[in-house]
């Protein structure tokens, strides 16, 4: 039984050389492969490549975004630093100005006070002088009256003749002044 199977197999093998192709099979493989190639070229490869490109772009875009944010943050930091420096300089400047202004005000006040005091002093001098003059005048008259009254009492003579007594007093005072002037000389 087995011999018949084997011999049948051998006959079959002799009948078809395995290197000789079946033309219809070749046609099916060619057409099938062409269809597959068409699908791959038209759809599969573009779709995968698109996804790859999008993914690469997403990753690179994310990196670019992060870099941009970083740059923005450092720019903002720089700006704040600059502003801080500016503010400090401004504060210093204002302080300096205030100090200078204060000094100026102080100097002004001092000057004003000095001039005021000088003015007051001068005024006082003038007032004192005028009062002295007034005192001198009033003293002159009073002293004259007192002296004549006194002299009248002593002499017992009425010296009520004003005109005469005034002349006497004036003469006396003039002598007194001349004496003083002579002593001063």
């Amino acid at each position, binding site marked *: 039984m087995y011999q018949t199977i084997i011999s049948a197999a051998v006959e079959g093998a002799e009948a078809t050389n*395995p290197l000789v192709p079946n033309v*219809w099979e070749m046609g099916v*493989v060619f057409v*099938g492969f062409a269809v597959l190639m068409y699908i*791959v070229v038209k759809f599969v*490869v573009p779709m*995968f490549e698109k*996804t790859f490109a*999008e993914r690469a772009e997403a990753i690179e875009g994310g990196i670019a975004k992060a870099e941009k944010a970083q740059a923005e943050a450092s720019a903002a930091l720089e700006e704040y630093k600059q502003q801080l420096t500016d503010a400090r300089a401004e504060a210093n400047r204002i302080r300096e100005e205030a100090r200078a202004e204060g000094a100026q005000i102080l100097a002004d006040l001092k000057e004003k006070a000095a001039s005021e005091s000088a003015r007051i002093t001068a005024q006082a001098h003038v007032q004192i002088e005028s009062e002295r003059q007034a005192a001198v005048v009033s003293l002159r008259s009073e002293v004259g009256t007192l002296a004549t009254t006194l002299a009248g009492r002593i002499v017992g003579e009425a010296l009520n003749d004003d005109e005469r007594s005034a002349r006497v007093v004036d003469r006396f005072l003039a002598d007194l002044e001349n004496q003083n002037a002579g002593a001063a000389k």
Partner: protein
Amino acid sequence: MHLPAILPWGVADGFSKQMLLVILSVVIIATFFLLAARKQQLVPGKLQFAGEMAYGFVRNSIAKDIIGGKDFMKYVPLLFSLFFFILVNNIYGAIPVIQLPSFSHVGGAYVLAGIVYVTWIGIGIKKNGLKYFKLATVPSGVPVYILPLIIPIEIISNFLVRPVTHSLRLFATMLAGHLIVMIAGSGIEFLVMQENILLKGTSLLVIAGAVAMYMLEALIMALQAYVFTLLTAIYIEGALHADSH
């Protein structure tokens, strides 16, 4: 065991099981990759990830590594189609019930090797003009007196033997693998049917051997798809850069 032709039944030149399987392979590959590539999500799901792995393997490990440069993308579709077309048609041989690698018939292997042959010669001529044949057959830096010996060898090896080995390598490994598994199967059947209990027992050894051969065949099926595609990439690269070889 070969099934006879499906339509018309039993006629040698009719519509065979191979033809059905080839058409089925196109449907399988196209469906899988179209489904995998369809969603185009930046963070891929499982199916998309598997598709991208498979596509990326051919694109980067074969096309980019071998052909390189800027223009490898042009040849990715061909290499990709070849790899998965051959892979699926080979793996048929490892699937129970189907159990028939399509390229155990030589016709398909001739067709694919022929397509590749035409492709790389076309690329060579397009790139270098008719000078390409001189570049491909006259190696530079060889003493003049050896050239009469070298040139015929180069012509035979590059233009005559190359497509033959390219196609027969695939066909022969698939046929041999198919035969081995088939013979082991028949052998097991034969030994199990024996009256003698000792002779019957030896069938266990054959079963162990058949399983080992089955594993080896599965490996070779995947490997041959890779080898065929890799050689295609090497031929294309050789044609592209004929002037620097």
